[in-house]
């Protein structure tokens, strides 16, 4: 099957490309760790209350902290290969375990926000393009410009005031009703209502980004000859926009969506903290407050890997939209 071959080719290319990036991120991560004030021995000494110079030296020897930088990098890498991101003194657990309990929540939030942003961006952008220069376009342009200018977390706060405080429709804390112990459909519904506000807050800025892009891209497609070909077949204008224009217009949108994934995940730090969402972003902030740099850098590393993984998904979407990709 041709489609299968193209997908396989895309996967292979992405994987080859991602390899060096992953390595680079690990090295960057290690360098930051070196720059952090204090090392693991200091952290343990502080936790223990006090330590003599001999104990410190012994600890440093045991962690390999007295070795030259390059050896330490080697050790860091070999630990990583064994999926060992270190131990958190503050949380008293392995860094990887801590992060892994938070990862699914962040993935859920990110995927929901991204889908929401893409969906709303496509709808709003298409409407703006279809009525370009007329009042629906002008009205939505103002909305989009505002969304583009408002901090996402503030949008979240205002949404809390409206939907949680004034109207009482939606919850604004955590990712489920604590202590309710719902099961089955009730659990899914409970999770879903908890997801609404954080996802909206995280998506708001990106709705604006994608709307602007879809609008420009749809207007560009209208000028193409194949649009006249489609009209000459007697197809309905709505059908032409949906089948012929949108698919072409979405190709640049997916490219940009891939470039914004890092920003999206970054925005999750504030939004998760704001909504008490137990994800990696909030963990990062907890780690900063606890001065637990192993956890902080672990989050940085895993978030970057998550961005790479999400980029693979975007690349596949791109290959599905554009048959010219993935062929030799």
């Amino acid at each position, binding site marked *: 099957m041709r489609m299968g071959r193209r997908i396989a080719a895309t996967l292979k290319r992405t994987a080859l490309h991602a390899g060096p990036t992953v390595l680079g991120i690990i090295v960057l991560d290690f360098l930051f760790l070196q720059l952090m004030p204090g090392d693991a021995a200091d952290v343990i000494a502080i936790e223990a209350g006090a330590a003599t110079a001999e104990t410190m030296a012994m600890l440093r020897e045991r962690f390999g902290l007295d070795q030259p930088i390059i050896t330490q990098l080697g050790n860091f890498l070999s630990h990583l290969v064994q999926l060992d991101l270190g131990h958190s003194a503050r949380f008293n657990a392995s860094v990887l375990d801590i992060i892994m309990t938070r990862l699914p929540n962040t993935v859920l939030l990110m995927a929901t926000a991204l889908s929401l942003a893409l969906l709303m961006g496509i709808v709003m952008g298409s409407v703006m393009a279809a009525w370009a220069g007329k009042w629906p376009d002008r009205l939505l342009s103002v909305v989009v410009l505002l969304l583009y200018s408002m901090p996402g977390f503030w949008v979240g706060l205002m949404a809390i005031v409206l939907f949680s405080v004034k109207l009482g429709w939606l919850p604004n804390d955590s990712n489920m009703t604590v202590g309710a112990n719902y099961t089955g459909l009730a659990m899914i519904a409970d999770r879903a209502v908890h997801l609404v506000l954080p996802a909206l807050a995280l998506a708001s800025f990106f709705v604006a980004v994608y709307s602007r892009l879809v609008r420009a891209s749809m207007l560009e497609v209208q000028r193409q000859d194949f649009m006249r070909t489609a009209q000459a077949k007697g197809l309905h204008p709505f059908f032409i926009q949906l089948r012929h224009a949108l698919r072409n217009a979405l190709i640049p949108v997916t490219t940009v969506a891939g470039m914004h994934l890092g920003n999206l995940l970054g925005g999750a*730090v504030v939004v998760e903290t704001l909504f008490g969402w137990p994800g990696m972003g909030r963990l990062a902030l907890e780690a900063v407050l606890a001065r637990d740099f192993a956890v902080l850098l672990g989050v940085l590393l895993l978030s970057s890997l998550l961005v790479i993984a999400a980029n693979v998904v975007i690349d596949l979407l791109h290959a599905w939209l554009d048959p010219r990709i993935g062929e030799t």
Partner: protein
Amino acid sequence: MQADKLVDVGSRAASRKGRRLRAFLRNPTFLAGLSILSFFVAIALLAGWLFPTDPQDMVAQPLLWPGDDPAYLLGSDSLGRDVLAQLVYGTRASLMVGVASAAIGLAIGMVVGSAAGYFGGWIDTLLMRLVELFQTTPTFLLVIVIVAIREPSLSTIALAIGLASWPTVARLVRAQFRSLRESDFVMAARSLGYSSTRIIVQEILPNALPPVIVAASVMIANAILTEAGLSFLNMRDPNVISWGGMIGDGRDQLRSAWFLTALPGAAIAAAVLSLNLVGDGLNEILNPRSDDA
């Protein structure tokens, strides 16, 4: 007749310059953005004259709503501080961080982008890898990590945002350089034996600037948003008033006094909006073909 033509060409060049200026003055988007922005700049400069007392001082009854007391037009917070005075002083922090970090990001991005675009080859491959690396890392987390390495002061925050935001500029400048690298005037400069540095700085860079200028306004806007997020998370200089910090402080009173979060957020939105309008306007003026409506 020949001379006539030359004069004609000269005057046409002059009138083109005039048209450019008139285009700035006629573009409503640009003008709207510029006037809001000028308002904020004026406020930031005049803050000390408008509110001579320390805005951190407790001056009023706590939690006055806007309009309750004409002396405190926008009310007071839970510590009895004047909200309007804080907003005015907060303008300084936002604009300073925005401009400083954009300058840092632009400087790094232009050096990296022009080197990659001009030299191509392995330099390009290597630098673009670096760009990709920084684009893959979640920007905001990177800023947090850098701020965590040092203490959260205004300069650290500006540096961190600058260090995290250069990749976009680098990509943009690289693309410009790649298209300009082969142009006639660069070829001519090269055949005259000019050094690479001279060609990059004097020949290509001025021609590559228009999209960078547009990007600069958007970068300042994004930096203000990032700074607000950081301050909201309490990663801020405790001695400096910032809009994000005000939102963070007001959050505890979200149920009773939501104006404490609404007002500074609106200020952020207005400032960022002005910069985005300026960016959109500049884009319409500098790249007329991108105008699609």
